[in-house]
């Protein structure tokens, strides 16, 4: 399988942020359906992946999404106390707190990972959250982790750098 497949049409308005969203089946995904049946309008920047519970969202999925070029990751679960699976959302909350710190260390700013509690009746909130997040990512600009990785790789594989003794590098202040 090729690494990527381009879209059939070119984008007219330049760069637009891409959000990977993980919505739990019972609350937030249903709310997104409600936003649809209510014909609410919001920016087309989010791509939703349905999971049964926000607690299924492995931090690896989030890191993977950023690594593959997502500008933001949104996780939607049931409100505290309302989890279809008793308390899966609390587990998500704790995991995200930890992951946020790791991501910050990696240079991924806080607003790029957003966790929201959206109940099945809050279609309006789905629209609002995606609208807000798209706006904030437009302000932050592209994360482009794949590009950054390529540049980092290029840096460390520079023949001069690779061959230079440590002391020399230190003297150059690298």
């Amino acid at each position, binding site marked *: 399988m090729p690494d990527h497949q381009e879209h059939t049409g070119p984008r007219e308005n330049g760069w637009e942020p891409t959000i990977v969203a993980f919505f739990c089946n019972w609350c937030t995904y249903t709310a997104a*359906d409600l936003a649809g049946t209510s014909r609410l309008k919001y920016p087309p920047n989010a791509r939703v992946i349905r999971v049964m519970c926000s607690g299924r969202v492995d931090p690896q999925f989030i890191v993977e999404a950023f690594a593959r070029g997502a500008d933001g990751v949104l996780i939607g679960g049931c409100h505290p106390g309302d989890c279809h699976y008793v308390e899966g959302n609390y587990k998500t909350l704790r995991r995200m707190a930890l992951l946020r710190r790791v991501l910050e260390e990696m240079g991924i700013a806080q607003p790029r990972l957003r966790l929201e509690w959206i109940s099945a009746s809050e279609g309006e909130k789905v629209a609002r959250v995606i609208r807000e997040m798209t706006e904030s990512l437009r302000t932050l600009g592209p994360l482009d982790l794949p590009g950054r990785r390529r540049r980092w790789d290029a840096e460390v594989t520079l023949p001069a750098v690779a061959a230079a003794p440590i002391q020399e590098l230190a003297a150059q202040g690298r």
Partner: protein
Amino acid sequence: MQREGYAGNGAPRVGVYICHCGTNIAGVVDVTRLTEYAARLPSVAVAREYKYMCSDPGQALIRSDIAEHKLNRVVVAACSPLLHEHTFRGAVDAAGLNPYYFQMVSIRELDSWVHTDRGEATRKAEDLVRAAVQRVIFHEPLETRRVPVNPNVLIVGGGIAGIHAALTLANAGRHVYLVEREPTIGGHMAKFDKTFPTLDCAACILTPKMTAVGTHPNITLWTYSEVQQVDGYVGNYHITVRRKPRYVIEDLCVGCRECIEACVYKEAKVLDEFNLGLGKRKPVYLPFPQAVPLLVVIDPETCIEFKSGKCKKTCVEVCGDRGAIDFKQTERLEEVDVGAIVLATGFRTFDAHRVPYYGYGTLPNVYSALEVERLVNASGPTGGEVVLRDGRRPERVGIIHCVGSRDENYNIYCSRVCCMYSIKLAHLIRERTGAEVYNFYIDIRTPGKGFEEFYRRTLDEGIHFIRGKVAQVSDWSTQPEEQGKLTIQVEDTLAGLIRRIPVDMVVLSAALEPQADAEAVRRLFNISCSTEGWFLERHPKLAPVSTFTDGIFLAGACQAPKDIPDSVAQAGAAAAEALALIDAGSIALDPNTAYVIAADCSGCKTCIPLCPYHAIIFSGETAKAEITEALCKGCGVCVAACPSGSIRQHLFEDAQILAEIEGILAAVRA
């Protein structure tokens, strides 16, 4: 990662089906471009578009392609999987392919309905279709799990909806546990005198049903009781019911009411809840003469024995050998197993105190409509006489519609029944008193069977209708004819002038609101509420009595304001849905359970405390985690937490989700 499926397929051959949904999708998403795009994706053997994929020809298309093109994976891009995933899995199954070799993409609710830019919506659809194609390649054949279903049903709420659902199920031979928190069943309907638009006597149509519930061999009736705990899942709920002490032994009391006569309180002094405080009762009382079960209740708040312990206990004395009164009775817990649950917890009426300018609670002759229902009721506190608090008969009555409804300050929704009950009360008041009756309305809404005819009839009876929202009800007069009266100030929007109308009695047609504890009940049963607090149905049109929790159904006004015919119809529907569920004997559950790859498990026990269902145990023998599939509900919390990646989840495998992420972002990397 890829494994052989039972359809015997090596290399994946994916069929992609793009639905137009009429113009619902095709109006925004360029379906032709999307289909061409899908056809070029790796592993895709065939991609087609069709007007309505869910229709018979649409499904036939999938079935014939599976045979003809030897497809071993299917992707349908259409509406929400919550709506039609089941339909398309069925089509795949019918063609002899395992139904789980299927992935559904929502390009309607998540795309065409929420976006307007054709180019962007199409790009999004392309991303989603590509993600699904990449995901479905990693799908594996799975077997649906079947679990047995307990044939009993729990019904919560003994109003007309709960009663009707209980009788329907009981008559079908199923055992019903009917739980009601008041001492008697009957709900709001038991308080009414006549019902619109036919003016049937409410008691005549309700009390026989109440009696049938009380005597039915298939109904266990627990009044003065509340559901305390709900465990389990569809087909296998375990319910704990808290039975409040009524200080009367149910099996011994025969409802003779001699204890009420004998009570040391010679006069009834306590405000009677059933009559909304318009009448009085004693500490030992029967809510109303036709109560079911016909058992007295002792109110410990007002009973002298409970307050001082020094009562002569004339009630015990008169009960004699029967010995039905038991001051030591305590709260009891009952536990039952049921397969399905019907919630019929009803509504409460809007508290008119919240609209201070209508004078409820400060001007004595301002009544709520429910109070007037009691006044016109032959078995009510006045024996059906419509009289004011000072005993006078009103000569002029004003009925104010939409109190708490269609009002930005309170509830924006229409309560649906108020126009009709206001017109009914207008008719009854005029019939009983000959008074001039004025209705103040925003719009008259009479969309039911026989409703408009009833409205026209009351017009002919000389009842006045004034279009305008009442600004104020006051007792100060500016004209001689207003003296000693209540004055309704209103803008008559048809005549285009401000009017002041003096009346003797004001009736406030209060909104219907969710029960005060609807939120707690919702949490107890793990269902959803609308923003107003009404219980949320699974789908407004396709699943109007189901909830998002399988096996829990809704009946009556707990779902939204409803009149009696609609409540009964919905109760019948809920009973039928419950019956369909339990009569199948067993139920198919999605095989989305977690499982352990024992070879990779390090025995770290991280997963064990995470599972709320205690489905994971640590085997001392193998020193590894083991999952009991029957207990697993498929949330996937343990899967995400397992440090060694040895817990996996059917239908939500890491490989599948990672493929979806990769598919979504493939275009970004370009």
